[in-house]
């Protein structure tokens, strides 16, 4: 087990236990900024933890970040760990982070799908879904990024439980999804949702379940353009951007469409870098470069949410 924040190796992949231990250390190291909440339990009864970054106040406007909804995307989780540490370290130093946290809270779910994540560590490194049983099928799991109540069951999702994009028996059937839905509804003041995936080098926004432009399309595309430009300035990594449906394909039941339809204007999803050679098996020496280049893009969206209250 890692023994302190100072010896934690951010340039390595880690198991669930190591990451949960690290969360506790982050809280211990920043007791006035970071706390750990449990928002629910997974299908296999693992705790669903969220790190809360807050400098005080009550029910402040908030930013939601999540990583690891698809567990085989290890670079995403690793980037999440680095990013959470960065937020904690930069408060009081970086003017943008400080300004954000002086007015808003950040909620960060680093392991959104712990059952799947554990499964990738001991049984199948390529696992994408949850681990819930499907009645009447030998196939296990639901794609949690097709399980949201936003065009649920439509194009780009599958009704076949054996498919990687199986949408589940009904919207929010997955505990891991329902926990987030309940949390965001219960909070009532979430202004931005950023859901992070890998590995197609994209910054996307609603909609995925329809080709109609979102009401805030113009603002989102300008923000996305700035974010990918700032990301590219670090190592030259090129991202494409736009709505999910127009940029990749129709995908129904996704996180950011649900968030947008439920009043969260700044809803984005990132697909982190791919070297073109490794896919989900990105070597760990690329964790820090990936996280480093992603940081300015995340900051752009968070600062925009801060500066454009609604």
């Amino acid at each position, binding site marked *: 087990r890692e023994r302190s924040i100072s010896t934690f190796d951010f340039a390595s992949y880690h198991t669930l236990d190591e990451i949960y231990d690290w969360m506790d250390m982050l809280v211990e190291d920043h007791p006035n900024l970071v706390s750990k909440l449990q928002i629910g339990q997974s299908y296999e009864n693992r705790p669903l933890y969220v790190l809360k970054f807050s400098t005080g106040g009550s029910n402040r406007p908030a930013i939601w970040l999540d990583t690891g909804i698809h567990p085989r995307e290890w670079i995403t989780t690793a980037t999440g760990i680095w990013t959470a540490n960065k937020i904690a370290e930069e408060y009081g130093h970086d003017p943008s982070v400080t300004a954000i946290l002086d007015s808003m809270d950040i909620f960060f779910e680093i392991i959104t799908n712990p059952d799947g994540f554990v499964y990738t560590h001991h*049984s199948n490194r390529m696992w994408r879904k949850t681990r819930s049983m499907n009645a009447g099928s030998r196939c296990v799991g639901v794609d949690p990024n097709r399980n949201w109540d936003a065009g649920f069951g439509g194009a780009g999702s599958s009704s076949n439980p054996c498919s990687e994009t199986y949408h589940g028996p009904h919207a929010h059937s997955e505990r891991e999804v329902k926990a987030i839905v309940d949390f965001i509804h219960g909070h009532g003041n979430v202004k931005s949702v950023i859901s992070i995936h890998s590995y197609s080098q994209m910054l996307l926004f609603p909609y995925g379940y329809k080709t109609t432009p979102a009401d805030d399309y113009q603002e989102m595309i300008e923000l996305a353009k700035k974010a990918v430009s700032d990301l590219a300035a670090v190592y030259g990594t090129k991202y494409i951007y736009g709505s999910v449906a127009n940029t990749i394909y129709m995908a129904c039941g996704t996180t950011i469409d649900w968030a947008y339809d439920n009043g969260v204007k700044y809803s984005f999803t990132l697909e982190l870098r791919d070297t*073109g050679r*490794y*896919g989900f*098996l990105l*070597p760990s020496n690329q964790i820090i470069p990936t996280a480093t280049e992603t940081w300015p893009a995340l900051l752009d969206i968070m600062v925009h949410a801060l500066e454009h209250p609604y």
Partner: protein
Amino acid sequence: EQLFVGDQVLRIIANDEEQMTLLRVLEEQAELQVDFWRHPTNLNHPVDLQVSFSSLQAVKIFLDSYSFSYSIMIEDVQELLDEEKKSMMRSRR
């Protein structure tokens, strides 16, 4: 533990809509044990396809017979997984 010895990941470029449709047909064929890491979306985006060793020949014949352009992105998935495990062990030590 599921092993992936001899599995490859192919990067495929579809040249036209007909090839896109064929890739979607491939996606539906569960018996071939293919896993789309990047799905057939539009002509500008490469498709990454993990193919089990047992299906490799059949899939390559399929791709060749319809004149797909493709390259081998990962030669042996298990080799990379073994390397990943070693790397984690080193870090832990």
